[in-house]
């Protein structure tokens, strides 16, 4: 690609994504507060699997809300959560994706707050969640900064990560926000809160939000269940507003091309979420020529293989696979 690409391998974490960093912290907090039950929302299922894992480890009851649409496209993760002893409840209201799973988790929590902790999975929601979840993920940025200094002798030129609510991005950004590296968050084109949103207040925080002129929240649409959210964490809105980070968006076709690219060239099957960041790097490689780029590979792609089988014909066949295999996706 003509640039030096460094991957922060959060995909190698237990449970397969960065989500476990936050969940272990919150689960320990729940135990400390005397709570016996965790409630969580999940989009792609990664946060739900991580929460179910922590609950199993610490002997807590666990209920995970997941949009009905997401339960279909992430059936493997639904079963993983159930194997871990969690109850998965489908959110059937609204767009039946992540936003609605959050609504249902909040409704559960207000009724069960005496025994339950809401283990929120991103840097959003009411205070102290955006701050707390960022602090629990800053280990990503701290480790990456240390490793970059060993490898490069300095910070990288660019730090990039995908953004839905924005937890993995804020985690890696927090290691570099006080330095000179350019920070680039990558949103799905169909869920670009900063790209297409205006300020709004929902789920307990004020941030950029995709909404209509009356304030009704719009439904996000993305190939990736984990980024299918019409809002974004308030700290990302702040970083965008002060010009410290910039936010790009990529299409589903570009994401699929990046998913295939990393699989074939590095032998790493990425989750569709970090494939967004790679899709941006691939598109912007002319601009990035000769630079060092740190990309947060926030999760592994096992959960997405089934969905991709439906989209990409096996053995290089032509039905759909050809059109999304690279060239047209990178022309933007």
């Amino acid at each position, binding site marked *: 690609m003509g640039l030096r690409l460094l991957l922060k391998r959060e995909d190698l974490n237990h449970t397969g994504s960065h989500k476990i960093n936050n969940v272990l912290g919150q689960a320990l907090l729940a135990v400390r507060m005397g709570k016996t039950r965790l409630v969580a929302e999940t989009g792609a299922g990664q946060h739900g699997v991580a929460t179910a894992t922590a609950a199993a480890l610490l002997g807590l009851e666990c209920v995970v809300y997941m949009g009905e649409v997401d339960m279909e496209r992430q059936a493997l993760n639904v079963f993983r959560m159930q194997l871990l002893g969690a109850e998965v409840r489908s959110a059937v*209201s*609204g767009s039946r994706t992540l*936003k609605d799973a959050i*609504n249902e988790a*909040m*409704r559960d929590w*207000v*009724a*069960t*707050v*005496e025994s339950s902790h809401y283990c929120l999975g991103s840097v959003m929601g009411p205070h102290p969640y955006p701050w707390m979840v960022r602090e629990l993920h800053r280990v990503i940025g701290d480790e990456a900064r240390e490793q970059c200094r060993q490898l490069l002798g300095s910070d990288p030129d660019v730090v990039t990560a995908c953004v839905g609510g924005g937890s993995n991005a804020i985690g890696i950004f927090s290691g570099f926000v006080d330095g000179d590296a350019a920070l680039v968050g990558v949103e799905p084109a169909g869920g670009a809160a900063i790209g297409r949103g205006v*300020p*709004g*207040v*929902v*789920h*307990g925080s004020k941030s950029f*939000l995709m*909404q209509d*002129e*009356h*304030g*009704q*929240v719009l439904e996000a649409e993305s190939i990736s269940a984990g980024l299918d959210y019409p809002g974004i964490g308030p700290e990302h809105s702040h970083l965008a507003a002060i010009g410290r980070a910039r936010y790009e968006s990529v299409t589903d076709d570009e994401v699929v091309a990046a998913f295939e690219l990393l699989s074939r060239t590095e032998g790493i099957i990425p989750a569709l979420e970090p494939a967004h960041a790679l899709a941006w790097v691939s598109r912007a490689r002319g601009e990035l020529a000769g630079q060092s780029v740190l990309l947060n590979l926030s999760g592994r792609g096992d959960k997405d293989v089934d969905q991709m089988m439906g989209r990409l014909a096996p053995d290089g066949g032509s039905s759909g696979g050809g059109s999304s295999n690279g060239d047209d996706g990178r022309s933007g």
Partner: protein
Amino acid sequence: MSTEPGALEAALRARRSQGGKALVPYLTGGLGDWQAGLAAAADAGADAIEVGIPFSDPVIDGPVIQEANDRALADGITPLAVLDALGRLDIGVPLAVMTYYNIVFRFGLERFASVLAERGVAAAILPDLPLEETGPWAEAADAAGVETVLLAAPTASDERLGRICARTRGFVYGVGLLGVTGVREELASSAVVMAGRLKQVTDVPVLVGVGVGTPEQAEEVCRVADGAVVGTAMVRRMMDEGPAAVGELVGRFRRALD
């Protein structure tokens, strides 16, 4: 600011001073023939009426009111259309709108407050706006002469209840249980406890809602509270049977409280 009570608080205080209990039904704006529903509720003895402005993500509401919101939005209702309709309505009882903060934020705080005042709406209830964040809205509402009703949750400390009661206008909305709106088999014991705790710290009318779904439950909570807010049972009636049935149900609550 003025200590003169607004139209909502005046009506509720008048009911209390006559030894009565206040009844405030809720209906979702834009749901079916909702304006006829409001008129029927007023005729059947409501002291005031709470009118929902639909929102896409009504997180304090259970499945019934959420469905009502979804239906009204699917029929194309907008916040301004609800307010304009209320402005044309003349049913002789104070009206309070209930909606979520993003609707007001997007509308513009000062503009929303002034449109409420112009349309003759007495009060606003914004359940997702916590006390700590109430300032800018409450100042705009005070300036326009609109009463801001605050909610008090069972988890609030006595100290916090005191601050909520000091800032609320119209009445203080005691949340009857930990949970979302909806009809339950029995009145939660927390509803009566909530009413008692609020009565100890304020002279403002204390109304309890959330989980008050039958005339018997309303009567039970009003042994302590000054009145009851009844939402889901009304909306269910509205969706299943229409405005006349809402009037009939309000009448049954009225007789239970008198």
